[in-house]
């Protein structure tokens, strides 16, 4: 029972995990940083442990009485170390496999007698660990961040054939401890997927008449666990297990939780077997009669059995949660840690039930149940599913409340989750959350994700700021601009630095959206900059030969953003700049429509005509551009041309080009229309030709 005082303390969601230093500089803000910081700390500890091991002579002081083992240097064991059975037994107790093997080999070489009991415990150690050193219990971070094999991954054979374990087994197999040795080896082989030999040894045991050689429940569990390796076909597998269970009953062996879990695991792997679900339920009932209650691992297998990806919907999770009912859970099986992550996955993919997801989360946060979340990978998958589900099903306000509670101290959303959140914001038109999301994207180091930037720009372009409160409206516009220009800087910087591998490449629609946002916020200069970026800087290509033109931008901006620019441009031009610059902008713009369409900027003869420097014939080429844009298939080109003609004073030939491009223009000077066909297409060629 936890202490009364202790139970009053709950997780502080505003502080980082205890393993991190609570200092702004040292608090990790991205998933990568979380991992790096925790593992760095542990690697520092490992360095210190290495020093302690290499220079044991510096650590010989005896301060504590009785001596504390954890703080004293362990003797460094080499092939010339002193060896005795006691030392071996100590090493076995400490689970240091490699050292124990070294000592055992020294003892063998010296032909020193080792008692059978010690050999047996040595064999048990080797079988359990497959002759490998386990990751130390003292290195929690390494265990937490280790990439564990996923639960659904099938058991592979990793058992080391012909290893020391088998040699030790041979020395024991004919002695008085043969039964124990058999059991140890069978369980070890089963654990590491050596099915055939485990089964063979098991059959040796069952056929032996010696009562000492009788297999125990653990052996039966191990062999049942191996069923998929031993039998083909679902029916055969089940019959095999049933026969084993009958054998157990015949021997008077009582099954345990391991038996239940072995059976359920095999059933959960039976794919489309119709009877699997019924059999699982029957097994549970049978074990309930025996007084064996399922643990989380059993429920995990049940979920796998019932909630198949393409199977019918099953509400088994509801029943499981009713049964568990927020009680304090205890780990009973290594697979217990798979329950929560799978339950959340079922909530999201199988049931799409957010209320059930809340119930799972309540169970997880009750008592000390959070210990059963497993490792960092399972935790993030759990939260990923929970977040995406909530994002889709809950009102956005509720979701954001939850988001603010858990992010970033407990969980930092992956880019996939961020995109879902952005989409939800878009759906709700809740643009007030955008500044927060953008700052989170920066903090979580996700600015390198093209999909996030594209989505953000798209949302901003489609949801212009329209808040009634003037002050708030201004504020929001400012934040919009900050986001838009932040994105611009991110992409431009990336391009400059030239990280080819993770380069974000501008697309036409991205730039179009960016331009729209700038225009909506009244930043004409920035929009003009974006437009220049869209069309590449053709002025320079004329000047220097070695100049490498920036990569072409794929795709075209929407006509909406372009015509928006045209409007702004005409307005801007007539108000502040006089006709020329704006005219030039327009021609550039319309030109762009064309050039983007056929993708070759340099070839276009027109292109040199309208640049960033104002040229005398800019109006002319502008008109031609409108024509080309029309040819390129934008029906709106006509409107653009109309606007152009109404706003600027064009000479007759320009007018004629416009007219030929888009048909008859309703202008005040019909006389100009007559001469329209004279210099059609003479000073510029369409790039398609």
């Amino acid at each position, binding site marked *: 029972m936890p202490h009364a005082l202790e139970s009053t303390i709950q997780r502080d969601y505003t502080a980082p995990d205890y393993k991190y230093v609570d200092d702004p500089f040292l608090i990790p803000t991205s998933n990568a940083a979380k991992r790096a910081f925790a593992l760095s*700390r542990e690697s520092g*500890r490992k*360095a*210190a442990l290495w020093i302690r091991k290499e220079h044991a002579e510096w650590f010989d002081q005896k301060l504590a009485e009785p001596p504390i083992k954890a703080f004293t240097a362990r003797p460094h064991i080499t092939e010339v170390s002193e060896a005795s059975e006691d030392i071996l037994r100590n090493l076995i107790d400490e689970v240091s496999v490699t050292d124990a093997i070294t000592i055992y080999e020294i003892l063998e070489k010296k032909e020193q007698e080792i008692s059978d009991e010690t050999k047996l415990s040595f064999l048990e150690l080797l079988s359990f660990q497959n002759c490998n050193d386990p990751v130390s219990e003292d290195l929690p971070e390494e265990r937490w961040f280790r990439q564990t094999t996923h639960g659904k991954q099938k058991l592979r054979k990793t058992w080391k054939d012909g290893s020391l374990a088998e040699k030790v087994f041979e020395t024991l197999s004919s002695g008085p401890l043969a039964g124990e040795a058999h059991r140890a080896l069978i369980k070890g082989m089963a654990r590491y997927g050596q099915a055939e030999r485990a089964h063979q040894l098991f059959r040796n045991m069952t056929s032996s008449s010696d009562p000492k050689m009788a297999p125990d429940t653990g052996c039966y569990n191990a062999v049942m666990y191996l069923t998929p390796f031993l039998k083909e076909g679902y029916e055969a597998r089940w019959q095999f297990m049933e026969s084993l269970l009958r054998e157990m009953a015949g021997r008077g062996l009582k099954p345990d939780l391991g038996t239940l879990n072995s059976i359920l695991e095999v059933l959960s792997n039976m794919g489309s077997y119709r009877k699997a679900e019924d059999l699982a339920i029957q097994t549970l009932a049978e074990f309930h009669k025996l007084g064996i209650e399922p643990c989380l691992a059993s429920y995990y297998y049940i979920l796998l059995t019932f909630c198949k990806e393409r199977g019918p919907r099953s509400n088994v999770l509801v029943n499981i949660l009713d049964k568990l009912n927020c009680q304090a859970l205890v780990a009973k099986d290594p697979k217990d840690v798979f329950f929560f992550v799978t339950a959340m996955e079922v909530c999201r993919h199988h049931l799409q039930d957010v209320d059930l997801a809340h119930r799972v989360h309540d169970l997880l946060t009750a008592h000390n149940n959070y210990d059963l979340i497993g490792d960092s990978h399972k935790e993030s998958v759990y939260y990923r599913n929970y977040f995406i589900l909530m994002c889709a099903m809950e009102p956005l306000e509720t979701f954001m409340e939850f988001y603010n509670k858990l992010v970033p101290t407990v969980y930092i959303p992956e880019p996939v989750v961020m995109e879902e959140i952005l989409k939800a914001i878009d759906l709700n038109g809740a643009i007030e959350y955008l500044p927060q999301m953008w700052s989170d994207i920066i903090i979580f180091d996700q600015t390198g994700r093209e999909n996030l930037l594209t989505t953000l720009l798209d949302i901003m372009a489609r949801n212009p700021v329209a808040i009634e409160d003037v002050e708030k409206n201004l504020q929001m516009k400012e934040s919009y601009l900050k986001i838009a220009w932040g994105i611009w800087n991110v992409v431009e910087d990336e391009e400059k630095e030239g990280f080819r591998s993770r380069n974000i490449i501008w697309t036409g629609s991205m730039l179009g959206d960016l331009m729209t946002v700038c225009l909506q916020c009244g930043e004409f200069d920035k929009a003009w900059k974006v437009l220049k970026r869209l069309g590449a800087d053709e002025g320079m290509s004329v000047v220097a030969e070695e100049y490498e033109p920036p990569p072409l931008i794929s795709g075209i901006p929407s006509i909406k953003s372009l015509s928006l620019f045209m409007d702004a441009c005409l307005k801007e031009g007539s108000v502040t700049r006089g006709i020329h610059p704006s005219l030039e902008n327009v021609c550039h713009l319309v030109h762009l429509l064309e050039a983007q369409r056929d993708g070759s900027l340099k070839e276009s003869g027109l292109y040199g005509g309208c640049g960033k420097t104002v040229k005398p014939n800019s109006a002319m080429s502008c008109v031609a551009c409108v024509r080309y844009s029309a040819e390129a298939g934008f029906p709106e080109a006509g409107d653009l041309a109309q606007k152009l003609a109404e706003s600027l004073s064009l000479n007759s030939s320009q007018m004629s080009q416009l007219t030929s491009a888009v048909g008859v223009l309703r202008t005040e000077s019909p006389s100009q229309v007559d001469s329209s066909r004279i210099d059609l297409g003479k000073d510029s060629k369409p790039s398609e030709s």
Partner: protein
Amino acid sequence: MDIFSALHKNVIPLLFLKNAHLRNSRTIHLSAVCSKSQSGRYKITPKGDRPLTYEMANPPHWIAHRKSWNSFNTTNLLGGLRSAETAVEDLFIRKFMVGTWHNLIANEVIIKRQHNIIRIAVLVRQALNPRKMYFLLGYTEELLSSWLQCPVTLELQTIEDKNCTIYKYI
């Protein structure tokens, strides 16, 4: 000839001649000048440009009033154990910290002992990548705890610039 040498040459022998009985007795020297304590106090510079941290700015008699101890332990209380060992260990910890966190520590190393736990609090400059800092953190904790045979925790606080710690100039 300044006044002190004059005193030495002329006055003091006279004193002894006059009071001959004093020559054979032990006298306690209690002049005001020599009893002046110096440790933990800093001299004012002519230009007034010597930077002091808060800790330096308060002389030792302000401990427990305006500032706190640098070592917290109970060894010097009545019935306290290992007072000498603790003092030497603290010295060792300070040397170790300053050497390991080279050129990073911006103030005194504070050592707090409670039961069998030693907590070491320091201000660290942000001159190192946080990852490296975490490495040093784990390294220091593990190595010190194997030497001192008890759990050691570091309580770090970082500062952008060493000048943040300046309290005043004298």
